[in-house]
């Protein structure tokens, strides 16, 4: 597979994830909505660390900032941190069974949300509702099927 194909596929999945992220939903469902773009970045960082990595995390984070960040650069920083951890540990994470992967993804999502939470507070836009942490749980639950779908897209386009 060429780099171009890979790049195209990653961009496509990132776009789909972005649309799922900003799709208007009723409040109760919106709180439960997993952070699809974060999951996508995690998947590519773990499975193809050469193509999807810190740069991908940074760009996707910047996209998120444009759509829903109070400050530009907030999600970019958080996502590149998560991507960095995923790239560093990708071999260890990849070899784990799905359930343990889910647990690790849960930890990564908590870390991501904490970084965003901290920056929210420092920049003076705090959201203190405990509901903001809920998406980490649904994200971890959604991880195995999401990873399966992403790997299917990888196999089909390859």
């Amino acid at each position, binding site marked *: 597979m060429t780099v171009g194909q890979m790049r195209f596929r990653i961009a496509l999945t990132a776009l789909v994830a972005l649309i799922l992220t900003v799709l208007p*939903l009723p409040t109760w469902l919106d709180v439960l909505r997993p952070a699809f773009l974060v999951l996508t970045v995690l998947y590519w960082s773990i499975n193809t660390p*050469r193509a999807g990595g810190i*740069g991908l995390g940074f760009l996707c*984070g910047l996209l998120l900032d*444009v759509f829903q960040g109070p400050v530009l650069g*907030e999600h*970019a920083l958080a996502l590149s941190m998560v991507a960095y951890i995923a790239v560093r540990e990708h071999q260890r994470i990849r070899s784990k069974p799905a359930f343990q992967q889910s647990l690790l993804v849960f930890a990564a999502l908590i870390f991501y949300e904490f970084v965003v939470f901290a920056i929210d507070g420092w920049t003076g836009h705090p959201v203190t509702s405990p509901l903001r942490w809920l998406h980490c749980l649904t994200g971890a639950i959604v991880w195995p099927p999401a990873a399966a779908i992403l790997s299917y897209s990888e196999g089909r386009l390859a």
Partner: protein
Amino acid sequence: MTAFGTAAGRPLQGRGGSPGFRFTLYAVLAVVIMYLDQRARYLEHVRFLLQAAAYPVQLVVNSPPSAWRWIRESFQTRESLRAENERLRQRQRDLELMSMRYEALAHENGELRGLRDALPPVADRWLPAEIINIQLSGLRQRLLINRGVSNGVFKGQAVLDDRGLIGQTTHVGPWSAEVILITDPEHAVPVRVDRTGLRTIAVGGGDGSSLALPYLPANADIRKDDLLVTSGLGGVFPEGYPVARVAEVHRDAVQPLAQVRALALSHINSDTEVMLVWFRQGHPASPAASASSAAEVKSGNAAMQPLAAPPRASTAARAEAAAAGAAGAAAPPAADAPLRVPRPRRVPSPAPAPSAAATDDNPAAPQAPAPQPAAAPGESPPPADTPAEPPRPQS
């Protein structure tokens, strides 16, 4: 982009530095961007461009809900349409009955304030806008609307619906604008209790419908069902627009402050359309003049430009002014009528004080200095019983 432009075959450490190095690079970049956006505000233009680029995605994302709404509307039965028509007709009749005395009251109010003629309404132009996206991000109370700079929208513009205040614009793109709702915890509206005139600040409650009044002392005169209207302070919202109704008041003997919760009057959760309003600069009730002029409509479809407010000014009042020899022909059409000069008095008495106070608040009215009758050279001559020269000192 280094992550993309790599040859997949090379070892991971070999290109563009180690992950640690690249992470440091991106992290520093992100922090710099954050600093520039938050502190220095250098990124207004970048944000403008990014918002323009994001607009197509937002439209696409909004298309399923709007398609659903369209389908539901087009399959409505004749019966329900008739019922709706009936309801609207009734409502219109009620509103007309309510506004029948408006002109007379406005004129009377002008008289009481010592003005020669009634003031034009403070709302100059308005423009309906469609809500594209509610809840741009989970727990913040934001809206995205389909009007932007091309329609003359500016940052910090008031957004209303037919019941009350909704919020104000924060980020304005070329075709879209982000609105922060009055119920967002980051938003605060200066309000006045309509019954008592007590002024305070209403902060968003963060749950989509409520506001909190955290700065009222425990002995403040406020009770359930009090109406809160904008106080006109703060420079964004004009005076006198309904905001919320007090829902509960807790007075705790130990606490120095009362805990007051109010429910927003606007139907934020069920609206699909909101109103952007331009206020008349130089009106006593308008917010303090801002740098961004409302008049600068740059380009765009004529159908999407703000509408001028219908001429509401009293024909009766104008006829009366003409009859009084006040050169009624000089009265411009009400839609762009400037603030009238207060009626000059022969003896400076405490009576004109309210009008003076009202106009002095407002730096945009050049002809406002109230006690001097000879303020406006271009104005129509004052009525016959007033002197043309400045008032003589009392002897």
